[in-house]
């Protein structure tokens, strides 16, 4: 009998896992004892961290795209299709282009985040974001023309992809205008939903003095309620109104609707055991990356490490051995603090982050990793 592993989603988590399984279970796959299918609705793999650099004219969205077929081991069956139903009782998926259901023995949900700006009236019309290819290009058009006025960066939704990216954007925008001699004519304000500038108190404590030093205005306890694109204002639930000339937002995020429809979790985030990454609402279902509601950042490094854990657990289970690998919350992030300096943090469930002093070396390390990422996707790094 063949064990069929289906991975839903070809982002960082899904792609790294597919290659991890090809490596671990190569002999079983070659013998026909195991089959691994990766289902994605786009033939390309997209590396989203590239988008941070697009508004500054430094990268193109195409730099973050490569065909899945070039990245994923030949032993993996890649299916370009959109899943329309998940039935965890019958262990079956329905997909748009497939006449027959896709039956699985093990399912891994790696469907990631989607943006939901429509949850805030006026946000889609009035705001710009760098959390999509089209968004980052539209923001580039605005930012490259911007020479004076008020830029507001508002973190509207949490959790959101890459929790460091809002800090990075305001640090970069400050430095970018400063180096071009325009900073005196540009005001920058950063808003955050809770009483500090970042969800993690250690990172907030590190970032706040840098913002003060660099004259980046801060509004905390700011939960956007409405944007008026005509008037150029954003209003919070707490009653604060800000005028803006350019609104950069981190929109509300959701997972895919199918997760909630399958009873696996709210807003598309799968309820999981945060150590084993097994879904609590169904058997033989795992989730990883943004999709897994573990409380750790929605970051590529998290998806990467979790893929290793899920790969090891699946291989153990398929071979009839106890699965012992667990995820310890490991997260790595580079944090740009300007156009040519960056910090770095590493933390897990037990050990909090302690941001490294910003340096040019760390900035170059971040850019170098963004290139080396393609080795990660291929399961080599």
């Amino acid at each position, binding site marked *: 009998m063949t064990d069929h592993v289906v991975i839903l989603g070809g982002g960082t988590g899904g792609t790294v896992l597919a290659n991890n399984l090809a490596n671990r279970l190569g002999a079983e796959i070659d013998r026909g004892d195991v089959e691994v299918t990766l289902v994605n609705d786009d033939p390309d793999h997209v590396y989203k961290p590239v988008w941070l650099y697009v508004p500054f004219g430094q990268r193109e969205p195409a730099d973050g795209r490569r065909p899945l077929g070039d990245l994923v081991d030949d032993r993996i069956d890649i299916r370009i299709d959109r899943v329309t139903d998940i039935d965890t009782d019958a262990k079956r998926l329905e997909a748009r282009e497939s006449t027959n259901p896709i039956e699985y023995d093990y399912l891994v949900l790696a469907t990631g985040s989607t943006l939901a700006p429509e949850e805030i009236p006026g946000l889609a019309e009035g705001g710009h974001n760098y959390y999509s290819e089209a968004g980052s290009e539209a923001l580039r058009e605005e930012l490259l023309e911007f020479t004076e006025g008020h830029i507001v960066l508002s973190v509207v939704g949490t*959790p959101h992809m890459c929790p460091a990216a809002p800090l990075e954007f305001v640090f970069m925008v400050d430095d970018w205008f400063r180096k071009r001699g325009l900073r005196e004519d540009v005001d920058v304000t950063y808003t955050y*939903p*809770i*009483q500090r500038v970042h*969800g993690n108190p250690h990172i907030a404590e590190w970032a706040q003095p840098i913002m003060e030093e660099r004259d980046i205005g801060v509004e905390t306890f700011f*939960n956007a309620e409405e944007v008026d694109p005509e008037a150029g204002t954003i209003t919070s639930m707490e*009653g604060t109104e800000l005028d803006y000339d350019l609104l950069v937002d981190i929109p509300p995020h959701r997972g895919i609707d199918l997760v909630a429809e399958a009873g696996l979790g709210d807003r598309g985030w799968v309820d999981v055991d*945060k150590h084993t990454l097994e879904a609590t609402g169904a058997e033989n279902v795992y989730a990883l990356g943004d999709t897994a509601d573990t409380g750790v950042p929605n970051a590529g490094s998290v998806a990467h490490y979790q893929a290793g854990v899920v790969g090891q657990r699946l291989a153990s289970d398929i071979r009839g051995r106890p699965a012992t690998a667990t995820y310890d919350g490991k997260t790595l992030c580079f944090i740009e603090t300007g156009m040519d300096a960056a910090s770095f943090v590493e933390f897990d469930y037990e050990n909090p982050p302690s941001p490294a002093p910003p340096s040019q070396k760390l900035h170059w390390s971040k850019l170098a990793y963004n290139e080396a990422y393609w080795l990660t996707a291929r399961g080599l790094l």
Partner: protein
Amino acid sequence: MTTTEIEPDETVDSRGATCPGPLMDLIGKIRNVDPGTVVALRSDAEQSKTDVPEWTEEAGNELLAVEERDDHTVFYVEKA
């Protein structure tokens, strides 16, 4: 264990979530309910004990009661 007689209209169970998850779950719920609605937030994150009172005051909502249970805390918040 202390108990209140408040009957919430909505309950948000954020046990197991780390900060700022519980507060953001509460804010998300308050965002989508009518004024006068009472929301109960269940949290086992220690920081909620400061986060939740600070936010409810800042946003002008009312923290009706805080109930300590064996392994978590329940915050009753009425939307202004």
